[in-house]
């Protein structure tokens, strides 16, 4: 109960600058009453209480479990067997870690409230052509791949910027060929994947892994997983849009051929 109160207070503090800003602008700049004020206030209360419950539940149930798991899976005793003393990391031994990273990345992204919000908006704005679940699953696959690759990077100790640079190159090339209507949404989907649910679990995995893999330094190698989780969804969404585009083009070509015959 005490925890919930603390989290509720923190959420209120998050909302405070937004409330101040909006009331300030309404009173001083726009100088007009806010329409549907009661509905907005009730909704605002829902958002604050809902988010606080959500975070309290996560901290009670899922975060401790996920963190213990990240520790256990990256423990050298689990990976190499208890007897061996390891001085050099063998990247092939970390199969379960990569799988865990991918699956937890996918799962947390599906539950990410900001992504739910953006998918809802995208569905509404595109008049239904972009399906909410389609977007969310595509983004989640991107995050899964990204985090899995990120753990591989920590295990091998290869420099972070190389991966990010290559990722950027891929995004740039994809942007040239992708349908224009999806580009802005794809870029946005990179930023929304990493908030309340994903960051704590993924950060724990990164720091735990870099602390236990021989030869890694948490200060240098522990960071960067979040960067992977925000880059690869962009690639996934652009790729998916391209695939869809190509499919429709091909099917219209086949139709044209048939009509010509």
């Amino acid at each position, binding site marked *: 109960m005490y925890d919930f109160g603390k989290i509720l207070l923190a959420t209120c503090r*998050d*909302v405070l*600058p*937004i409330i101040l*800003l*909006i009331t300030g*602008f309404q009173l001083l*700049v*726009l100088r007009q009453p806010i329409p549907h004020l009661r*509905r*907005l206030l*009730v*909704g*605002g209360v*829902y*958002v*604050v209480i809902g*988010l606080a*419950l*959500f*975070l*309290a*539940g996560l*901290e*009670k*149930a*899922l975060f401790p479990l*996920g963190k*213990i*798991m990240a520790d*256990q*899976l990256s423990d050298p005793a689990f990976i190499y067997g208890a007897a061996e003393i390891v001085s050099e990391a063998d990247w092939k031994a970390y199969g*379960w870690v990569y799988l*865990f990273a991918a*699956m*937890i990345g996918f*799962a947390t992204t*599906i*539950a990410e*409230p900001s992504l739910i*919000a*953006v998918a809802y*908006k995208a569905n509404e704005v595109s008049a239904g052509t972009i399906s909410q679940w389609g977007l969310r699953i595509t983004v989640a696959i991107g995050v899964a791949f990204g985090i899995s690759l990120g753990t591989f990077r920590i295990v091998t100790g290869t420099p*972070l910027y190389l991966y990010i640079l290559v990722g*950027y190159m891929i995004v*740039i090339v994809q942007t040239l060929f992708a349908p224009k*209507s999806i*580009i*802005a949404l794809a870029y946005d989907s*990179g*930023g929304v994947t*990493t*908030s309340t649910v994903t960051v704590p679990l993924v950060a724990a995995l990164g720091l735990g892994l870099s602390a236990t893999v021989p030869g890694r330094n948490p*200060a*240098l190698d522990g*960071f960067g997983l*979040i*960067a992977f*989780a*925000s880059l690869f969804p962009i690639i996934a969404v652009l790729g998916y849009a391209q695939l869809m585009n190509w499919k429709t083009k091909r099917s219209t070509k086949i139709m044209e051929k048939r009509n010509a015959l």
Partner: protein
Amino acid sequence: MITSIILNKIKQSFTDLLPIILVISFFQIVVLQQPLPQLGEVLFGTLLVVAGLTLFVQGLEMSLFPIGETMAHALARKGSIFWLLSFAFALGFSTTVAEPALIAVAWEAANIASQGGLIDPGPESLQRYAFGLRMSVAFSVGLAILVGVMRIIRGWPVHYLIIGGYVVVMLMSIIAPKEIIGIAYDAGGVTTSTITVPLVTALGVGLASSIKGRSPLLDGFGLIAFASLLPMIFVMGYGLLIFR
């Protein structure tokens, strides 16, 4: 009638959460081969998460989206670019500067920098470094929303700006000290909180739909992308400035 709507919403939230439950149970039972510790507490926590998510999504539709859109329409109707841009900057800056995730990351970064011998290890210089980092991230998010709103007004294509930003990030990665690179990349991800994202998305879409010649899908999205790109540039810039 109402109960069936509520039940439906709860079912939806449960579906959103199901993958996490499956993944954790699979690894706990099959891979690590251990029973779930404190099962009762975990179940209770999961119940809270489902209830919280249901309420949040409901509040989203009732409140956060309409507020963002109403503000966008009202400011567009007022026709003052100055006020629109000030609102954009203030929204980005004020929601980021007190963000707990950012405060945590800034402290972490200060510790790393002092361990690496880049700054004085005294508490005062640590404080100063963390504060500077926080300010530069908050300023960069404010600026990002401002630039993003400017783009919607003018109708600039989003990819030129983003790709330009990527090129800057790449160039800076080459010259920036390596202690700051990981933090800089991550800073882009932590700035956008769960309350800011829906609000900013609604602002962009609302703006794009109230300005003639802009498409909500083409021009309305993209604000978040700026908000995750600019902090990377600013944090690396901060690193370069401080460590020289």
